[in-house]
């Protein structure tokens, strides 16, 4: 051993050895062995811990000290077609609290006093199960500075309560286009399972409705991460690394804020007008304006509406309840595509086209309307809305004056052919199925036929037969026929544009980081609606006549541009009549199609048509004026 050699150098070995040393030699050897065993064991253990398992422990040490903090990515804005921000973001001061704060009654009452909120509302916000259990919840948004400084000074009294700056949605145009834009909120358990939201976590803010929902993945962006080193008490010591968040992309919609505003005002005017005309139950309705060539949705209004600001920072359950009550008429629903109504006389254009296509009617066919129509037998007599009758009417006049008798007749003739050709034409014109618009929640409506009736009434066999009256009712847009305002606008657009079924859409383009267009809406070549051009031309002339001298004349008196349209007054059991007007313009070279419906609004010509006029006026650059007129047709 080196050591003893070294020792021997300095202290030459004793020659004279005492006896007791010899005696003790074995005992010292044992002691020395013990020392070597102890240190050897420690050495081996050290080797396994530091060299063999070193990397694993190094990772554990890093896990100890490194925390990842998420950095929210700013959500993309939503712009109108001319680049005006309809939805943007703003920083907001929010008082947030951990869920456990709800268990502290004293703290709740202190917060209640400070924030001037009822205790149960605070409790409810803290206990919302919609959020990740450990994430702090927003108790109140946009708190005044004096509350912020009070909380800062008294932070020991409010453990778990913090003031944070969070980015929230802002709506520079207020509730304009609320239904198209939609709203955001914390992701729900249900949404976590949705296909395009895989990878989202509880607590993430996502689009819940409208464009916010539909373009969620584009708007969302990608979260960044900040890696910080913390000490044992969790205090941040320094920043280790950072992955910058990637901002969500701006989405440009086809909407035009100016047209949209006029559409919303027109809808409100129409409801007011309905009230003036003694239809006091009118509260709801919708307006859609399309570009007939491209399917761009230029305006889409739905009444009643709601304020998307309510959802900023999480909606309170009281507000949520109110927005989902029958008595509130469900203001969250976008009636332009989520509601299906009987189209009433607006459907006569479809019936008329079917009649022309299958030779049961021609432009100048003449009919006799005596008010009561008994062709199916006197026990199945049906009345025209004009009880006195229209007398001798041509097909054209039948459209212009909305004569029911003409279309009973056409419907009956089509029924007799037994080929469900009316249904076929209706389907080719886009009814009974979704238009495929890029907004969530669209309904398909319904084109009734024999198979449908059999299925629908399978438990009532006595009602399951398709009867002549079914086709006759359908011919005037009543019975079981249901359409959405969007479908109707698109169907009329196809009459105006020469038979093309455009796909309505609200997405115009997506902007890149540089603000330049990164992605344009990819328009598919529209398919034909299957109606021959000559017949479409006949129908265009007839619809132009509606506005020129028929049921739409009053509403468009003095309008500088030529308009083709059709009034409708739908009968709904137990309700007042629903008012319809659908139009396209200009007649010579149609550019825009507009559909207006006012639930329980009364007559199409006097309630819905003036609203359509306002929207068309704005679209065509005419002065927007509110017209008061009368209409008694259906």
């Amino acid at each position: 051993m080196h050591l003893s050699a070294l020792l021997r150098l300095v202290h030459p070995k004793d020659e004279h050895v005492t006896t007791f040393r010899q005696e003790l030699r074995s005992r010292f050897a044992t002691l020395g062995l013990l020392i070597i065993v102890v240190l050897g064991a420690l050495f081996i253990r050290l080797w396994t811990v530091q060299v063999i398992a070193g990397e694993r422990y190094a990772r554990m040490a890093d896990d100890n000290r490194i925390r990842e903090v998420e950095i929210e990515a700013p959500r993309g804005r939503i712009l109108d077609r001319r680049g005006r921000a309809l939805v943007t973001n703003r920083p907001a001061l929010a008082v947030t609290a951990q869920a456990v704060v709800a268990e502290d009654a004293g703290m709740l009452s202190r917060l209640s006093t400070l924030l001037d909120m009822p205790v149960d509302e605070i409790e409810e916000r803290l206990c919302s199960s919609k959020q990740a259990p450990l994430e702090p919840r927003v108790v109140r948004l946009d708190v005044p500075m004096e509350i912020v400084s009070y909380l800062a000074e008294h932070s020991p009294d409010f453990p778990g309560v913090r003031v944070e700056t969070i980015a929230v949605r802002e709506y520079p145009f207020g509730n304009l286009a609320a239904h198209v834009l939609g709203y955001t909120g914390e992701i729900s358990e249900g949404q976590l399972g949705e296909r395009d939201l895989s990878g989202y976590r509880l607590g993430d803010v996502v689009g819940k409705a409208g464009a916010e929902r539909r373009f969620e993945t584009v708007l969302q962006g990608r979260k960044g991460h900040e890696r910080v080193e913390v000490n044992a008490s969790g205090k941040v010591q320094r920043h280790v690394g950072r992955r910058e968040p990637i901002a969500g992309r701006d989405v440009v919609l086809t909407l035009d804020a100016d047209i949209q505003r006029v559409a919303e005002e027109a809808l409100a005017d129409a409801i007011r007008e309905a009230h003036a005309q003694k239809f006091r139950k009118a509260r709801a309705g919708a307006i859609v304006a399309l570009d007939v060539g491209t399917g761009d949705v230029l305006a889409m209004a739905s009444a009643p509406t709601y304020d998307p600001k309510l959802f900023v920072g999480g909606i309170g359950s009281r507000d949520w309840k109110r927005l989902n009550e029958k008595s509130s008429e469900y203001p969250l629903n976008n009636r332009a595509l989520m509601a299906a109504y009987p189209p009433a006389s607006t459907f006569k254009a479809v019936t008329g086209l079917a009649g022309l296509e299958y030779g049961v009617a021609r432009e100048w066919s003449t009919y006799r309307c005596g008010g009561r129509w008994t062709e199916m037998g006197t026990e199945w007599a049906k009345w025209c809305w004009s009880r006195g009758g229209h007398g001798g009417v041509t097909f054209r006049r039948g459209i212009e004056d909305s004569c029911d008798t003409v279309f009973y007749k056409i419907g009956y003739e089509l029924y007799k052919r037994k080929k469900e050709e009316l249904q076929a034409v209706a389907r080719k014109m886009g009814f009974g199925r979704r238009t495929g618009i890029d907004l969530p929640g669209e309904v398909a409506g319904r084109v009734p036929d024999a198979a449908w009736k059999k299925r629908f009434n399978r438990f009532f066999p006595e009602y399951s037969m398709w009867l002549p009256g079914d086709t006759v009712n359908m011919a005037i847009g009543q019975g079981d026929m249901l359409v959405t305002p969007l479908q109707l606008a698109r169907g009329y657009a196809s009459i105006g544009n020469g038979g093309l079924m455009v796909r309505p859409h609200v997405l115009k383009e997506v902007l890149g980081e540089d603000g330049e267009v990164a992605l344009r809406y990819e328009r598919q070549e529209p398919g034909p609606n299957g109606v021959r051009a000559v017949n479409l031309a006949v129908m265009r002339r007839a619809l132009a006549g509606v506005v020129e001298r028929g049921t739409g004349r009053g509403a468009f008196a003095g309008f500088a541009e030529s308009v083709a349209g059709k009034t409708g007054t739908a009968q709904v059991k137990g309700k007042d009549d629903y008012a319809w007007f659908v139009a396209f313009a200009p007649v010579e070279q149609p550019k825009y199609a507009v559909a207006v419906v006012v639930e329980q609004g009364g007559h199409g010509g006097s309630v819905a048509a003036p609203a359509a006029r306002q929207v068309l006026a704005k679209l065509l650059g005419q002065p927007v004026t509110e017209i008061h007129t009368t209409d008694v047709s259906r």
Partner: protein
Amino acid sequence: MDRSPLMRLLNKVNLPLLLWTVLLVAYGTLMAASATSGMDGGAALVKRHVVGVAIGVGLLCVTWTADYKRLRLWVGPISAAGVLLLVAVFVPGFGASAHGAQSWLRIAGVRLFQPSEPAKLVLIIVFAAAIARREGKMDSRGELLRVLGWVAVPLGLVLLQPDLGTALVFIAITAGMLLVGGAKPRHFAMLGLVGLVAFALVLAPGILPRKFALKPYQRNRLMVFIDPSVDPKGAGYNLNQAKIAIGSGGLFGKGLESGTQSNLNFLPERHTDFIFAVVGEELGFAGAVALLALYLALLITALEISTSSRDYYGALVAAGLMSMWTFQVLVNIGMTLGIMPITGIPLPFMSFGSSFMVTNLAGIGLLLSIWARRYGT
């Protein structure tokens, strides 16, 4: 004897022992400075450490120059003083507690030192005298028990504090000295059996009156040693964090003052009981092995001194010191490596704590004294 005066002087000084001691104390001071660098009042702690070293060096000079053999003549007063100090901690106004044990001596409100530390040295000096009288023979059980009587009193007093760690050190010292003193294997077997039974009695809750039973935290420490996952946030936390610190040091460590486990406070008691974890984390396997090598050198040198003692008494004192250090190194480092229970036993020359440092340096002085007088004076 034709050596020069210088050589004769050198012959009286065990240079290797001095060298190892200086290196160990320097290493300890360096690590103390590194471990406390991020603490509030770290500089004051280092200053206290250095003061402790200074007092220790002073005492070392006394024990070195004095003839160790004279200690045998003073066994009575020395043991009386030791017992007095150990009793004093229980006297209201003189005692103070730390970590749940009544272990500090306090005078006029100032904490002076932990009497259990010098008591280790007292035990060695007194016990060596008791055994040395029997000239290496311990054939009968009665003789053994009579010798053990010298140990029983201080052992009982530290157990009353209760300071389990120091009690275990006392037992280790006793065992090492008995080995050199001539106890037979069957004696050790018998004592081991008694110890096991006592241990079982103490560990099983509810058998002994509460006064003599282990405190819950002590029980917990032993249980945690058996299974660290029982208490990952409490006693197991220390153990886990120490292991993570050492393991993450790897081959060459993270560098002085750069240990994340120690500087970010994940490592508890890092300048005292867990100083070895700081060595392992900041200087890695290389630094830790260097420390083990220093201990090996120190202990082998002490063994050399023990074997070259001119009398039985010196050999026994050296063996006692050796046993003390070996045991403390084993338990302290073993604890941080997860192979020994957490007992709060400090690491010789490395851990913070002036009482312990002074005791160790005085021990070195004794060894030097034994070496210097190996040919007689």
